[in-house]
């Protein structure tokens, strides 16, 4: 291993070191404040190391492929982890006696995600996914009060196990057909493998994609999502919704591109069916949902449906593949930032468990700053101009138009139209007369306000002045 490789691995090393320090700290002095600071500093150091590594692009062994794209998403994931940290700081004050492990879990999960986005091999993919997942199960169940977190964790655990099994089985089939487990190798040999044993390749790929679809809560593998979103502490929901799904999606894009899965038309057809179903069912399920965290869960199903459209469109683009990658990156950034903003407000206002829409009655009068942030997030989800979501959707629709996928485009439009109903419903609820129970303004801890504000500004900035981000993504 040469020094360049060491440098590009520095984010992963930095995260691992943070995890180690946290373990040592727990054995010396148990104090969750110190743990919080260590985690924060560790994440910030990691961001720095990503910056220093950003000029290199390198394969590290057969397992990892460190490139600008992966590093960019690593940075984004670290950002998600930082926001989660900010939201987590005081939620376990009363609920658990030992809190330090939570931060350890969070760092480990982040490490898993960073490995996942740089995975170039099925082994590293599984490794990253499981590291991220197993830490998450524990994080979901971390509050010891109430049954909901435990129920959510068990559901997620069991169903995830199922999905992992699918993934492994799929890889086994692909290995059987191609004799290689790295994405690039599979891609190179799939062509000849396909000639010998087409069903093996198709079945393997389909099963792998189904397993990944579970993590992205694509229909029909979406059933767990609302239960887990609702049951988990809101900070963990934030983590799950942004970091875990974002990392998984990037891994999926890599697998499909590097593994050249896009060459199999019937496989893409299957993905199209999943995308259409996700866009429609996700939005329909959210339509009259009263629990706001469940609503976000269903909406995430729809959004990953939209993103799937971009993947399907990629092979149809010919020379403009770059546009496809840019669209995916932009949409993912917009979606993640918007989700962070929305869930931050939900954590601030709705508290950790209660996420009934009633808690948001008349929020515009009770806490205008939070209400405006949530409203901006909802408008961004809906894709209203001047918000990040609009630019993302604009990109996506341009892409789909270029690829001439009319069915998907139509579904995307219909889905977006349905979605406006429930996003605006949230805003209407906030502008309604305050409910009798919520006369007072919710107490939002002082330092949580700037977090929400920062995220809202980010959503607006990306939407109204997108050029810097477009340039940045264009260089990846």
């Amino acid at each position, binding site marked *: 291993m040469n020094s360049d490789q060491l440098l590009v691995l520095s984010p992963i090393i930095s995260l691992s070191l943070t995890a180690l320090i946290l373990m040592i700290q727990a054995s010396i002095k148990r104090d969750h404040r110190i743990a919080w600071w260590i985690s924060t500093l560790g994440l910030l150091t990691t961001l720095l190391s990503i910056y220093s590594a950003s000029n290199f692009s390198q394969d590290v062994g057969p397992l990892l492929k460190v490139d600008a794209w992966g590093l960019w998403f690593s940075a984004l994931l670290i950002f998600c982890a930082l926001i989660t940290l900010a939201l987590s700081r005081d939620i376990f004050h009363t609920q658990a006696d030992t809190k330090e492990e939570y931060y350890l879990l969070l760092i480990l999960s982040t490490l898993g995600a960073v490995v996942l986005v740089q995975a170039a091999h099925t082994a590293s993919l599984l490794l990253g996914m499981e590291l991220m997942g197993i830490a998450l199960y524990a994080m979901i169940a971390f509050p010891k009060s109430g049954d909901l977190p435990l129920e959510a964790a068990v559901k997620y655990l069991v169903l995830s196990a199922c999905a992992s099994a*699918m993934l492994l089985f799929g890889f086994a089939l692909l290995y059987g057909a191609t004799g290689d487990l790295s994405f690039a190798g599979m891609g190179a040999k799939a062509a000849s493998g*396909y000639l010998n044993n087409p069903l093996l390749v198709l079945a393997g790929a389909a099963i792998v994609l*189904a397993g990944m679809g*579970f993590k992205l809560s694509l229909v*029909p593998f979406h059933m767990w999502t609302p239960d887990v979103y609702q049951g988990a502490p809101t900070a963990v929901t934030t983590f799950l919704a942004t970091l875990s799904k974002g990392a998984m999606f990037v891994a999926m894009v890599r697998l499909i591109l590097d593994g050249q899965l896009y060459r199999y038309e019937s496989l893409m057809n299957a993905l199209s069916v999943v995308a259409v179903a996700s866009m429609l069912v996700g939005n329909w399920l959210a339509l009259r*949902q009263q629990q706001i965290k469940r609503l976000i869960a269903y909406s995430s199903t729809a959004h990953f449906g939209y993103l799937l459209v971009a993947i399907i469109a990629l092979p149809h683009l010919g020379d403009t593949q770059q546009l496809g990658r840019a669209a995916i990156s932009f949409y993912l950034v917009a979606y993640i930032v918007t989700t962070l903003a929305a869930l931050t407000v939900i954590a601030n206002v709705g508290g950790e468990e209660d996420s009934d829409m009633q808690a948001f009655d008349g929020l515009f009068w009770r806490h205008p700053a939070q209400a405006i942030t949530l409203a901006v997030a909802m408008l961004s989800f809906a894709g209203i101009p001047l918000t990040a979501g609009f630019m993302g959707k604009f990109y996506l629709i341009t892409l789909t138009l270029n690829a001439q996928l009319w069915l998907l485009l139509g579904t995307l439009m219909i889905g977006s139209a349905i979605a406006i109903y429930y996003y605006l419903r949230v805003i209407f609820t906030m502008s309604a007369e305050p409910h009798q129970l919520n006369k007072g303004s919710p107490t939002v801890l002082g330092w949580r306000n700037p977090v929400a504000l920062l995220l809202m500004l980010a959503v607006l900035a990306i939407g109204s002045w997108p050029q810097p981000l477009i340039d940045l993504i264009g260089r990846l």
Partner: protein
Amino acid sequence: MRDFVWFIPLLPLASSVLLMIASSRLTRRSVALLGVGSVGLAAVLTGAVALEFLSDSTPVEVTLWTWMKIDSLAPRISFYIDGLTLVMMCVITGVGFLIHLFSSEFMQDDDSYARYFAYLNMFIAAMLILVLADNLLLLYLGWEGVGVCSYLLVGFWYRDSANGRAARKAFIVTRIGDTAMLIGLLLLLTELGTLNIRTLMQVASEQWSIGDSLPTIACLLLLGGAIGKSAQFPLHTWLPDAMAGPTPVSALIHAATMVTAGVYLIARTHDLFLLSPSAMHTVAFIGIATSLMAAGTALVQSDIKRILAYSTISQIGYMFLALGVGAWTAGVFHLMTHAFFKALLFLGSGAIIHCLHHEHNIFKMGGLRTRMPITFWSFLIGSAALAALPMTAGFFSKDLILLQAYQRPDFGPWLWGAGLLGALITAIYSFRLVFIVFFGDAKTEPDREIGWQMALPLTVLCALSIIGGYFSLPLADVFPLVNAEHPPHWVEIISISVPLLGVFLAYIGFYGQRPRIDSWTKTPLVQRVGQFLRSGWRLDEVFDRIAVKPYYNLANALQNEPIDRFYEAIVRLNQAIHRHLSATQSGRMRWYITSMMVGLIATLGVAMKIAPGAI
């Protein structure tokens, strides 16, 4: 100095904004000071610009910034000052200031003192923008701005729903004209590629020749806007109802300034109208017809403000007549003198209404000559000017119009004759008003005297109504020269004597106990004619039947339209799908796993169906 002309509309605008924001923190005194002072300062600045203009009369253009730039359309926020603009500005700020001063006492007891001045100042600002605009788009901004202010001020006492109705009527009826005007603007833009007024006029004269159909269409569309704003037949019905606003508002907006915007528009675009003789004829005929109709209606009204309102419609008709026969300078001249004497009459009536517990009915007044001397003299001078008695301001301007109308080769004498008939009726109804209100027995006692804030504007306007006729307007560079040939002497003598005859007839009919007219009006025929005239020629009824009622019916019919059903069905379909899908979210893990497996099998099924085009 002239480079800072943008300061003039900015002053009242800033004051308006300030009054809106800080209304609750200002005392009445400071509100009045701000509201009246800003317009006063604007008037002083206008005076300074005018003085400078007298020594150096080259038109000035002041560009502030380019509003937006889309293709060839690049409207600028830019002002243009020539003689015509300057005359309008002097009228707006001068008369406007006097009316503001009058208002500061008239509205004294009103709760919404600050709101009143905020609207009034905003009106002045919008009106100034209208006349200063160097392109038609900016002019349109001012045009709509004054419309909004008019709406707000007519409905100023909004607690009475009748006032709200009057305000809506004023707004909607003028909007009909405005829509025509907007279409006209767009037509000009698409045909000639610019909205800058001077370029437009130049390009129009180069591209179009006299008698083409396009300039006629454009002129008629602009005319549509003009007749809506200036209350000409058939869009004049809003003006009498607009009297629901405070009286100074009627004086400022519905007599002196806003209603003359149509005259200004046509005068400003006269090069375009010169290309279309038929449009010019239309203007003249609409003017004279409106003038006669409104004068007839004014003759039988009993509400003092409605008399003045119909009189305003009638006088603007004269201005349209002037424009239609190409007597541009005479039309603008009459615009100015009319602003003086009609503002005077409205303010006089305001003083009466103020002192007589909001009494509007002239038959409940009487004998006010000795009790309100200042008001009496104002009214007398105002009425004399309105009737165009010799030596008053109205005489000079109306005489000029009639003489120039006579000189038209085609319909000249006919227009002149009709104009004379109008002048006769004008003299009769204006002195009917004077005789009934100020002579005879007192029927209501005034309960207070007017203070200096009301007396001063009345006095100044009295002076202007007399000497205004001697002003010479700097319009020589603006309008083409008209035929200066002098008509025969008998024409002039008749023109002078007809108003005197009118006053005499009014004296016979309405002075003292009026036995003759009383017995005469009892006959059924006269009763019926009177009823017909009083209702404004039944036009309100006609419009109600052909426009308002059908519109309501249509709206009612569309309320339950079938297309809505379609959308409702979509809503219901989506909700039903939502309900059914929600049922699948049972929370049971075995069901979740089952669905995953079913999903997996389905995915496999689609993926493994070997497609021919694979690889």
